[in-house]
Every structure is written in C-alpha cells, then in structure tokens.
C-alpha cells in the first residue's frame, strides 16, 4: 500500500511535468501585446493618424523650435534672424559655421529615424492597400515621399552628398556591415530630393485631409525652395572634393555637369512655383491693405502673421498651449514689456537690415542719413520723425524707436546730450578729440569724449547714459523735470544686453495681444508659417532671373522676365515699397541682386535668409562694412539721443556696441559629418579636406 501510493505520486508528478511542458507552447507563443505592429497601424485611418503623428513630430521644420545654434526640436532662446544678419541677440548672433552646441546632436543622427519611418510606410503600406480608399492610400504614400524629401533636403543643405537610404535596412536579419550605405554625390542627392518631391506632388491631394498634413501645394512649395538651393549650389559653390574612403565626389558638383545641373534645378524651381501661382488657390494677404495708405499697409503685414484664415498661408506649424507651445514672445519682447522669466530683446535688428528698406533718407552709399551737409547731426522734433516715411513693411518687421507696441510707446534711447547745440552737434564717437567711426574707434559710448569729459568736452560732461535697465543716470531738463538717460527698452551698451542693443526691437511674430503675465517660456501659441505665397513669388522670380542669365527666356511658354517683374511688383506693392520703374529692373545681374534684396526684406526672421546667403555662397564674401565674414565682420546699429538743450532728437549710426563678430570660412558651407559616424563606418566619408 505504501509502495503503491509512492508510485501514484510519482506518476502524477511525471504526468504533471509532461503536461505543463507541452502546454507552454500554446499559451505563451503569442505576439507581445504591448508592441503595436503595422497590421494594427495600417488597418484603418485611425491607426494611420498615429503613424503620421510620429512622422510629423520628427519633421525637420525650421519653426519656433529651431535655431542655428541648437538645431531642431529645441525652443530655448529661439531668435530667428540673429544668424542671417537681420538682427543680433545677446545669446545669439554669429555666423553659422557648424550645427552649434546642438543639445539634440547633429541632424545627421536624427534624420535616419524619420527616414526609416518613411521608407517603412512606402514599403509596407501596399500590402494593406485594401484597408483604404484609393484617395486615402495615395495621400499616405504621398506623405511618406514628402517626409523623405524633407529629410534628404535638410541633409543635403547641411552636408552635401548623403547616404541615399531608400529602403528599410533589415536588421538584425542582416549583419550591420552588410547594411553600410556610403554617401552619394551631392548631385545624386539633390536628384533624389527632386524625385521624392515629384512623387509627393503626384500622390498628395489638392487640400490637406487633416490640418497639419501636407498636400500637393505644400510639396510644390518646398520643392521650389529646395530646387532653388540645388541650382544655386550647382552654380556658385567652389568647394568640392572626393571622399577619402569611397573616392566619391561627396560635396560640390563635377565641373563638367554643374552648368546643366544648375539650369535643370532652376527650371524645376520655377515650374513648381509657377504651378502654385497658376492654381489660383493662394494670394498675397491683403485683407486690410489699401493703396496709398501706409498705416493700413503696415497693419495688414502685422496681421498676416496671426490670421489663421490668411490666403497667403500654404503651410503652417500650429501650436496650442499646454500641449505644444513655444517661447518666442518671452525671448524677443522689448525690455520694457519683459515677462516673468526675465528674458527680453533676444532679437535686435541691425541697421544694415533696416537700411535695405525704402522711405528713409540715405547717403549716396546707401547708409542712413543722420548728418547734415556740415557733418553735424540732423535734429528731429520727434524721435519717430526719422522713419516717418519708411516703407510700411519695415515697421511690420521692426519696432523702431518711439513706435507703439501693445498700446505702449517703446522707449528706445541711448542717452541724453546736455551739451550746446549752437553750431551743431558733431559726431559723438570721438576719443581725445579724434573722431573715429571705424572698427578702431570707441566701442561704446562710455568711452567717448562727451561722456568722459575729455577732448572738446574737457571738464564738461555732456552725455548721460544708463548702464542697465534699473540704474539710470538722471538728467534734470531745462524745464525742471527729470528724465532717465536711457530708454525703458535700452539700449544700455554692453553691460546689459537684454535690451535693444542695436537701437531696434523685432516686431515680426510678436503677439500684439498676449498679456504681459503670459509672456513666458513655453506659453506662446502663435503658428509659424513654414511656407507662404510671398516666398513662392520670390522663388519664381529668382529662378526666372537665374534662368535668364543662363540664356533661357521662357519655360513652358511662360516668358521669364515678365513673370519675375510681376512677382516682385506684387510683393513690393503689398509691402508699400517704392514701385519699380519697369521690367528692366529685374533684368541681368543687377536684376538678380534686386530680387535677392527683396527676399531679404520679405522673408527676414523666417529661418530662410541664412540658408539663402549660404546657397548663394555670399556669406563669406559679401562686403559688410568694409570687411567680409571670411575675415570676421561686424554689423551696425542706430542709436537715438535726446538733446535736452534743443528738446530734439538725433541719431548716431555706426558699429553696434557689442561688436558681435561674424566669421565663417568657405569650407564651413558644408557641416562636418559627426566624427563618431565617420570613425565607426568603413564607408562614411568626412568632408574632403577636413
């Protein structure tokens, strides 16, 4: 009996073990339920929405979360314009020579994540075609091509030729070594950008099915921009060379093919822009615009950046607090309206930018006229008089001294001059009697004779300044009232640069209706316009001018020069600039320069101009106040002063006090490939010569 029970227990135990072993197979062999696969995502439109959300969250959009210093997906200290020469900022304002101190790393690494998502969609969606209508299916395929085109475009403008990964790299099915893709030539890369944009255009619908998705015209817009870039590089780039490992021309174009390539790309740029123009779906924003009414033209250009129904917007990146917000207002607000985080005036327009505009009295060399025939300062009754007739577009871009913002006069004044005005006031920048407006002259007004009471002002201090926003030198005016030397919004010289240290503040993108209590980091929610009709007109005009210079007079039956003239005229009319004399103005090399200048005025602070001066290859070579950026160059500011004796204002123009130095060498038009990527791969080449 005892033995029997023992056997029974043994048999039961064995049976239990065997049955539990075999049952493992059935119960546990199921896909992990916490991983969502293609069969779930590509099953219906809701799943696709998730997939596309991930794609769009990785898109290389240069918006309120982009800066040259920190690249994409980082909204700290975002001050668009500070690297393109339109403005300077305390925390920015230098030439773009690398990908900065990108907290997120160079774009190189990030690009391939999105690239894989796009390739994955292109390769696997066809198997799930039955789940969608033809329209939906084509839209999704178009989105994938659009994403891929945007990635390759963002890479090409930074690095030149890149690995053209157009299939999913199967890992771990293959060894990593078998999946190495070398860099292609720059020409092949731009051709891939072109092909992907064309596929996107062919597949995407006329209007975005969901706000935020791309559509045909969005793809055409970016295509025209990308092709303008490619055509310019093919034409103007001088930097070329072969990869050390692959002997591939990874940057620059073959001298034998560059002329034809540039013509091809400019033609594509023109055709893409022309297709948008002919569609009639978009128009320059002119809701409040009225002919010969500068105030209306100005207000119209301010409103166009905040009107969600604007006919000019082709593509916007939208924000909504608290889910997705940015801090543009906090970083760029004029000092006197500073918000709780303590940032302000991160974006101070340069005088060089302001001088591009019409309606300002200028010297024969194009600089602003602040001195009379005797070389003394011109005196103005009101601080706003000097810009009284300025082109409305300037005021829509820049807060000029004495302008109104958020119902407040923006008080920009460098100091108070208490000296005599009999016989005129001589230029202030003099040390020990020697006036010097070159780079060798006094850097700040703290050093000039009128302030230090030397030279012509020996023993007679005649200039009073404020060194920061809280401690002011106070001047008692002839009528007995007291006045702070500096304005509420600066400038305060170099000791406090959270003020308008060039003499100007930015207006573009600043929300005029945001209460001061909400001027905070991560609190702004205005949209960033990534692509607008104004740029399309400028793209068409520039491509047309370049093609004309290359000996082409018409494309698809469109005469190029008249088109360029019409486009530029429309932009200038809306802006309130002086009208052009005739189509001759846009012809030839001078015409091209006029079109480029128009671009700098229209698209400043929109993350476009820096790429323009890079693709024109003029960033290192353009003369800038007597120097070039290859030697290191400086921008200028305009400093308003109040003469207490005359009760009038005068302006001093010269190098800005911070002496922000812009320096770039020609080879820095191509960014370095991250060193780790080069050393770990047997095929990825560093930029030749570096």
């Amino acid at each position, binding site marked *: 009996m005892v033995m029997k029970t023992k056997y029974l227990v043994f048999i039961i135990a064995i049976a239990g073990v065997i049955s539990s072993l075999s049952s493992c197979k059935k119960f546990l062999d199921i896909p992990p339920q916490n991983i969502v696969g293609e069969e779930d995502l590509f099953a219906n439109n809701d799943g696709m929405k998730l997939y596309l959300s991930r794609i769009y969250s990785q898109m290389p959009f240069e918006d309120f979360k982009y800066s040259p210093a920190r690249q994409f997906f980082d909204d700290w200290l975002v001050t668009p314009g500070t690297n393109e020469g339109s403005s300077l900022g305390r925390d920015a304002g230098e030439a773009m020579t690398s990908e900065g101190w990108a907290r997120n790393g160079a774009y190189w690494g990030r690009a391939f994540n999105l690239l894989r998502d796009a390739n994955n969609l292109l390769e696997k969606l066809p198997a799930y075609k039955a789940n969608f209508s033809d329209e939906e299916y084509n839209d999704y395929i178009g989105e994938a091509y659009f994403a891929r085109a945007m990635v390759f475009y963002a890479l090409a403008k930074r690095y030149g030729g890149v690995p053209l990964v157009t299939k999913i790299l199967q890992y771990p099915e293959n060894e990593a070594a078998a999946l190495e893709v070398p860099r292609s030539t720059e020409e092949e890369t731009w051709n891939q950008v072109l092909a992907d944009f064309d596929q996107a255009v062919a597949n995407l619908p006329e209007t975005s099915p969901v706000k935020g998705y791309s559509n045909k015209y969005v793809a055409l817009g970016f295509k025209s921009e990308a092709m303008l870039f490619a055509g310019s590089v093919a034409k103007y780039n*001088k*930097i*070329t*060379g*072969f990869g*050390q*490992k692959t*002997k*591939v*021309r990874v940057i620059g174009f*073959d*001298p*034998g093919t560059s002329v034809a390539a540039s013509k091809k790309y400019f033609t594509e740029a023109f055709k893409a822009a022309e297709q948008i123009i002919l569609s009639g779906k978009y128009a320059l924003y002119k809701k409040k615009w009225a002919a010969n009414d500068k105030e209306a033209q100005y207000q119209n250009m301010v409103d166009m950046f905040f009107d969600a129904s604007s006919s000019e917007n082709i593509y916007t990146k939208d924000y909504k607090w608290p889910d997705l917000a940015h801090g543009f207002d906090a970083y760029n607000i004029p000092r006197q309206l500073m918000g709780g985080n303590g940032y302000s005036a991160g974006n101070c327009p340069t005088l060089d930018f302001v001088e591009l505009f019409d309606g300002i009295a200028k010297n024969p060399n194009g600089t602003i006229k602040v001195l009379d025939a005797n070389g003394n300062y011109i005196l103005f009754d009101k601080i706003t008089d000097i810009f009284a007739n300025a082109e409305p577009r300037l005021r829509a871009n820049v807060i000029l001294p004495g302008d109104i913002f958020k119902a407040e006069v923006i008080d920009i004044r460098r100091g108070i001059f208490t000296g005599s005005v009999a016989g005129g006031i001589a230029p202030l920048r003099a040390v020990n009697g*020697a006036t*010097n407006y*070159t*780079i*060798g*002259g006094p850097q700040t007004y703290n050093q000039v004779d009128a302030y230090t009471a030397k030279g012509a002002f020996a023993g007679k201090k005649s200039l009073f300044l404020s060194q920061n926003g809280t401690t002011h030198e106070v001047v008692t005016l002839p009528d007995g009232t007291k006045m702070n030397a500096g304005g509420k919004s600066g400038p305060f010289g170099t000791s406090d640069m959270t003020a308008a240290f060039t003499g100007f503040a930015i207006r573009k993108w600043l929300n005029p209706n945001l209460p001061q209590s909400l001027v905070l980091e991560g609190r702004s929610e205005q949209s960033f316009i990534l692509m607008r009709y104004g740029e399309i007109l400028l793209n068409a005009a520039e491509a047309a001018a370049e093609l004309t210079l290359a000996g082409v007079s018409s494309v698809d039956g469109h005469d190029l020069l008249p088109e360029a003239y019409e486009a530029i005229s429309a932009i200038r009319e809306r802006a309130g600039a002086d009208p052009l004399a005739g189509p001759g103005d846009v012809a030839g090399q001078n015409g091209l320069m006029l079109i480029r200048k128009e671009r700098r005025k229209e698209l400043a602070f929109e993350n476009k101009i820096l790429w323009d001066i890079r693709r024109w290859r003029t960033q290192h070579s353009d003369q800038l106040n007597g*120097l070039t950026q290859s*030697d*290191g160059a400086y921008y200028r500011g305009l400093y308003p002063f109040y003469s207490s004796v005359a009760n009038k204002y005068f302006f001093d123009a010269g190098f800005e006090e911070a002496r922000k130095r812009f320096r770039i*060498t*020609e*080879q820095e038009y191509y960014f370095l490939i991250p060193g780790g990527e*080069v*050393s*770990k791969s*047997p095929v990825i080449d*560093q930029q*030749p*010569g*570096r």
Partner: protein
Amino acid sequence: MKHFTYLFLIFLGLWWTSCKKIDNFPMPSETIKGKVVDVVTGEPVLTDQGSEGTRVRLMELSWKGSANPEPFDFFCMKEGIFQNTKIFKGTYNIRVDGAFIPIVRINANGDTLADESKTLEINGVTDVEFKVQPFLKIEWVGTPTVANGKVSATIKVTRAVSRADFKAKIAPMGNYSDQDLDDMLYITDVRLFVSESPYVGFREKDDRFTTIVNFDKNNTDPELRDFEPKLGMPYTITSQNTIPAGRTVFIRAAARINYATENIKRHNYNEAIRVDMP
C-alpha cells in the same frame, strides 16, 4: 544604517579593485618633425598658425583598429616648420597642404595624378622635408617706418611658381580652361597684418590696425583692379587707425591667389617683425 555603511564600503572596495587593470598602451612618445621648403630656393615656406596656414596630415597606416585610418591633423609653425612629440610608433602617410601647389593632385574622376606625400616609419625622432612650389613669395623692402601711430611697410611680391608651371600642374585636376586658370592665378588681396602677438597672421590680427587691400577686376579704382603689374615692384602698405604710443606690435605681410588648397584659400607670408611705437 550600519548595514548600509558596510554595503557602501564593500562596493567602494569592489570599485577600487576594478581599477587595477592598467591601460596597456604605452604613451605615444615618438617625434615627427620637419619643414616645408621652396623647391627652388630651399627657404622655408612661411605660413599662418592655424587652419588657414600649412596643415600637416598624418594617416597611421599601421593601425588596424579601424577600416580606414582617421586623419590626424596639426599645423605648421609660422616659420614653416612643424613638430609633434607625441606620436605612436608606426607607419604613417604624411602630407602637407598650404599656399603651394598641392603635393597630392587628383583629377575630376578621383584618379591620382601626382602624389608627393611621404609614407614612412615614425620611430624615435623622424625628420622629413617637403619641397613644394609656393604660389607667391613676399619680401620686406627696407625697414618699416612709423609716423602718427601708423606703420608703413614696403614689400615686394613675386610669383614663386611661374604662371606656366601653375597651369601645367593644376589644369589636369579639373580639366580647367585657360580662362579658369587665369582666374585662379589672380591675386585677390594683399594684407598687412598687425597684432600685439608675435604669432601675427590671419587668425591673430587686430582688426583696428590691420590693412586689407582687396583687388577686384570691376573696381572703379584702377589701382585696385589688378595686382599683376605691381609684382616684383616695391609696394607700400600702411596700417589703419592710430596704434597707441609705447605699444609693441608685430607686423607681417601676406598675399594670396584665387586658388584654394583643400578648399581653403591660404596666404603666403613674409616673416613677422617687431615694431616699437615711439
């Protein structure tokens, strides 16, 4: 709490013991030194110190840790000499790039036309000399004069490599036309660098005093259209602004042609001289 302390001590002990294994690679201690000289005169090719000067590039061929050797770059001293005393023993390819005809020349298909780089063993103190053809030669003429806080110096610029020789060597690199080659030979700027440092040059200059004379074929001033007729003639160049009395400055003249080696247009220099401002 006591347990915690013991645990901490145990981990600390483990952590310390794990340091035991020493780095098994001896410190690099070999020396590479050398100079870059003009093949015709044997004089050193003077240069700037930094990325716009003469660059020395080492590629360690004996290192098998990666598929391709990583370039190791450093720069010539202003006298046209170089030295690095912390090099691993091994076989290296060495090339120099500066304001002279490239010693490694590659055509538009990526094929090598000429390769005068050196491949050698670096062991102990290894001395090399590169004989090159500089683009320009710059010499002082007389001694600089000082008046009113400005330094005036007279220089003579000549071509160290003849136009014909330049064209013969550069043309095959990109099937350049004669017009292209003339453009490359064009002298774009002549400079008088001023600095308070003896290492004066492109990277070390005082913008307030340095004079840059740019030449441009379309300049309205005929004097600034072409430097070619002034080659071989005394050319006087004066510093800008007023250098304060009592300062010591160093000056150097430089000029360059419109041709980039390794994508950088580099200057040829003369030697820096000291000027004491009275």
